[in-house]
């Protein structure tokens, strides 16, 4: 597809040939994930998390479908049906724990994958569309995970649903109708549980669809790489298969080992004790917090404690929380530096490692803590930096920064020898 030197698919069996004429699906797979996709030879391990996220999505879909066979989306029995899965269904405990922990691993992979893109400038031309679709995937995944967490109908499920849908109330005029539409009522109840289950089943398949677009868009320019320099010739690339399938393969094994350690030996480590108490609208938990992967956004939401003129603090928080993610959509046009890789941008690199990363870490920590001092003040500083980083620092940097000289080619960067154009 992308480069003229890409290997061509030649069906080796008669059946393959027959198939290729009728429906060239094997050819399609060959060209997108097989030997027909030439990928830069210098991709580092940060490039492994895309396929890893995809595999954890598959884990979620498979375990989810099995759970859905035994789960009952009814507010009276949802909690007990999950306990029935844990106690009576053969290996049910394994599917349930795999699904609950799989969500965390999926988000871990997604975050590292996004972080890779942020550092190596993968969002820049010509890859803007890949990046935009990626942000859509992330938004869909957040909605999926939020609604999934409501399904076991424990205390944190219920109160999490209440707090998050309650955010819409802050929006003038349309807010309350939106909230009622989401919940199918005025507070989380059976109607909300049913629509959340329906959507929780639907959205992962929409994610699959957007992932297909994401990869399609990827294969037009091809993968970025740690130098950010364009691929210039065949020596710069290796066929995806077997090179990157082998590399992704062994790190998948590593990831599954970590996953198994969580699943089998500490399955509730990332969960909340409160969610083993059935939902009770009359008793509010002491600290209502979402799952860890939402903590940074939750910290931004709670950082806004003072009204601005006529805008109430709660609305500001909601706007800021949504804006914090929505800025990613504009990133390709905010950061105009022609150099992609952070490795060759001395100032960008400093702001990334000493600004953005600590800022997200602080937000993550504060988002999981009680909403009390000093955590609120810490999240205020971090929130200020977060917006400054994307909306002020990056645009200014791209005008003022003097990048370091780039290698002439990927091959030169790797071997020290110039790329012979013809090979």
């Amino acid at each position: 597809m992308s480069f003229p030197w890409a290997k061509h698919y030649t069906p080796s069996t008669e059946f393959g040939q027959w198939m290729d004429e009728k429906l060239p699906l094997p050819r399609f797979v060959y060209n997108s994930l097989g030997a027909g996709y030439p990928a830069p030879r210098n991709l580092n391990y940060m490039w492994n998390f895309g396929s890893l996220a995809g595999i954890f999505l598959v884990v979620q879909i498979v375990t989810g479908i099995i759970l859905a066979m035994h789960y009952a989306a009814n507010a009276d029995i949802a909690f007990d049906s999950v306990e029935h899965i844990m106690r009576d269904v053969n290996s049910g405990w394994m599917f349930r724990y795999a699904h609950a922990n799989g969500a965390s691993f999926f988000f871990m992979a997604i975050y590292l994958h996004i972080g890779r893109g942020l550092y190596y400038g993968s969002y820049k031309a010509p890859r803007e569309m890949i990046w935009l679709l990626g942000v859509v995937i992330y938004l869909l995944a957040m909605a999926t995970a939020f609604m999934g967490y409501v399904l076991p109908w424990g205390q944190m499920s219920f109160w999490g649903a209440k707090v998050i849908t309650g955010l819409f109330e802050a929006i003038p005029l349309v807010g309350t109708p939106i909230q009622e539409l989401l919940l199918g009522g005025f507070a989380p109840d059976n109607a909300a549980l049913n629509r959340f289950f329906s959507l929780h089943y639907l959205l992962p398949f929409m994610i699959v669809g957007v992932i297909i677009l994401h990869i399609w868009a990827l294969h037009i320019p091809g993968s970025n790489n740690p130098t950010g320099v364009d691929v210039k010739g065949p020596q710069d690339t290796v066929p995806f298969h077997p090179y990157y399938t082998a590399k992704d393969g062994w790190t998948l094994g590593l990831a599954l080992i970590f996953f198994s350690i969580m699943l089998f030996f500490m399955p509730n480590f990332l969960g909340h004790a409160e969610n083993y108490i059935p939902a009770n609208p009359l008793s509010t938990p002491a600290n209502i917090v979402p799952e860890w992967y939402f903590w940074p956004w939750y910290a931004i939401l709670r950082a806004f404690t003072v009204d601005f003129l006529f805008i109430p603090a709660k609305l500001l928080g909601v706007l800021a929380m949504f804006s914090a993610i929505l800025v990613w959509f504009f990133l390709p046009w905010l950061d105009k530096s022609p150099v992609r890789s952070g490795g060759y941008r001395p100032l960008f690199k400093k702001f990334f490692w000493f600004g953005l990363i600590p800022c997200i870490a602080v937000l993550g920590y504060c988002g999981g803590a009680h909403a009390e001092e000093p955590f609120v003040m810490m999240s205020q500083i971090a929130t200020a930096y977060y917006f400054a980083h994307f909306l002020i620092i990056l645009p200014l940097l791209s005008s003022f920064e003097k990048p370091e000289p780039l290698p002439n080619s990927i091959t030169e960067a790797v071997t020290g020898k110039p790329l012979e154009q013809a090979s």
Partner: protein
Amino acid sequence: MVRIFGMLIGLFFTGWMLVTFVLGANEYVTNPPVKAVEYQFHLEPKEASFKSDGPLGKFDRQQLQRGFQVYKEVCAACHSLRLVAFRNLEELGYNEDEVKAIAANWPIPTPDIDPATGEMSSRPSLAADKFPKPFANDVAAGAANNNAIPPDLSLITKARHGGAPYIYSLLTGYQDPPAELPESSRPGPGLHYNPYFPNLNLAMASPIAGDDMVSYSDGTAATVDQMAMDVSAFLIWSAEPKLEERHQLGWAVIGFLLIATILAYLSFRTIWADVKAEKKKKEA
């Protein structure tokens, strides 16, 4: 355009955050927050370790049986165990007949009404029944317990921060309120001081009040500490009956994955050998 709009929005959010921070910091310095009383007197759970802890953990069935005895003779008067069925007790090492006998002593309400008296009738439980609840409903449970409803214990070790050590600490942690405890945090009528409980006073009186509340058939001395440990161990089992299966399967799966990963790593090295060799030349 994007950049100009972006900067304006960025300036707004950043600026307002900084203003908010300065206001908050000023408040924090001039008017430092006082720690709630609960924080000063509340204690973290004591150290307590169980045979089921850790990746190699297994249940001590003798202990689970003792713990079940404590539940049956003490806690069951107030606390339900609604997710556990009598048949599950076979996992504690009781045989089928013993389980049937245990169940038979536990009357379970039936939907029928006694035609002679009009009262709700009941029948002996069967092995397949879940443990019957001690109170007909939450109103009855609250009325009998000073308006506090005794929570179901099936999942309690997973439903509380601190898990089983917390339950153990709670059961052994009752004491007289310290003299310096402010009036507002002293136990009101029907409440009992226990520094392990998050808000210090709870409606349950010390359930294991003294030694030898139960007499163990295996000869273990029924000290308060022993009974508290045993019932906590039993509640680990009731919350996570598949714990042993989980640990065992975990080792098998991880063992398999280790081998598969090593093989995958070796093939990765072989496949990349030529590309890596070129890189080596650069370093040399």
